[in-house]
């Protein structure tokens, strides 16, 4: 599990872990908690292009549907098959095994720091 303090965030309650030219993306523990038990995850296929701010996937709980937004422009290099098979990983380990997609990007947009995101959620 990544240390949440070292990650960057979006206002859509996603986290981004930057490693070279690849950004790993997931939803935050706060978002997972708000959704409740996650029962279905729909992710873009490897090789698909994604555009910053556009919906690229869905995260469904028993009660509601959350959208996955691409936090960067780029190409999906990997989707997490483990969460598709076991969506509960998003609840049990949102910052680790519950990661969703890895995106190869050219340029990183402005993202929120841990402190800025914490201020946003009030937690």
């Amino acid at each position, binding site marked *: 599990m990544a240390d949440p303090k070292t990650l960057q965030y979006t206002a859509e309650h996603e986290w981004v872990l930057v490693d070279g030219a690849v950004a790993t993306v997931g939803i935050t523990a706060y978002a997972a908690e708000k959704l409740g*038990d996650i029962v*279905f995850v729909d992710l873009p296929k490897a090789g698909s292009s994604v555009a910053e701010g556009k919906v690229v996937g869905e995260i469904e709980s*028993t009660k509601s549907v959350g959208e996955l937004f691409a936090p960067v422009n780029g190409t999906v290099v990997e989707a997490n098959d483990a969460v598709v098979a076991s969506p509960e990983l998003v609840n049990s380990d949102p910052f680790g095994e519950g990661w969703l997609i890895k995106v190869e990007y050219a340029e990183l947009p402005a993202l929120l720091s841990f402190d800025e995101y914490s201020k946003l959620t009030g937690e």
Partner: protein
Amino acid sequence: MSDRSSPLHQLHVDAGASFTDFAGWQMPVRYSSDLAEHHAVRTAAGIFDISHMAEILVSGPDAPAFLDYALAGKLSAIGLGQAKYSLLLAESGGIIDDLVVYRRADDAFLVVANAGNRFPVVAALTERAGDFDVTIEDQSDDISLIAVQGPLSRGILEATAGIAQLATPLDELKYYWSTDAKFGDLPLIIGRTGYTGEDGYELYVQADAAASLWEALISAGAPFGLVPAGLASRDTLRLEAGMPLYGHELNLDTFPVQAGLGRVVALTKEGDFVGRAAIEAGPPADARVLVGLVGEGKRAGRADYLVFDGDDEVGNITSGALSPTLGYPIAMAYVDVASSAAGTTLEIDVRGSRVAASVVPLPFYKKEENHG
């Protein structure tokens, strides 16, 4: 909107609950996992705080005749201690609320209404009282309601310290009957009723004793696997059981027969009742009917999603979820009669893509029959 909370609120906070607004009340939506809470009710037991429900006492010499006039069912026919599911109809034939009515005495009935309809129900009953010799007393603020639901519920109640002096022992209490009892020195009503499709009980106690009753039940229930359960699991449980939720399957524009509740309206009872003329005339010829839909895969249709039969829009979903017990998507929907036969294949528009779904009879889930 008011922002009320249950007398049990602090216990829920201490148990780590998340809260949701429900009809102006802050109520627990889940404690940790809504799926785990759902499964606990199906396999062991869950305890729900439903103190937001409204309790209205109708008493007086004319109470039986009054309820036969004011409600859709023949309440005068139920026995002492018996409970009955009923409807409060508008003159138009639409539904003001769905209710459970308990007979407390020859001349007294406890009417339990949805939290969001408390004031419309009290207003309608008061208005309908007219020349009847009845008193209508809104006791909602004084009574708390705790539900214990699941196959192990009886053992839990029997093991709970302080619950005593049952007029009818639990092993003799039939489904949809109630008994007077005591919790300590205080009056307690135990109904073998619920909203989950499992065996279980609903306990009515005065509000200032609700916290001690909750704690006694939790304490006795822990060895049985009893867990506190929130409104998220209550909703998936009642959906699997095919039970309607007011505001979703029922509203002022829906006739009982459309919702499959024609049997709740006692057209054979003597005398007039509010809504009779409209019910006898029937709903419009093109009125849609409530059906169950089951889908493949994991993507559930949800409230307000549209339903298609080929290219034709034929209805809309009122409640839907991926069924925790069954593992496939289930939904209740109103569809055109021509598309309502069991076995018909329809399509749900799930956020822009069509998902196949078959019409099935309700309920989706039925517990093994062992009503004692």
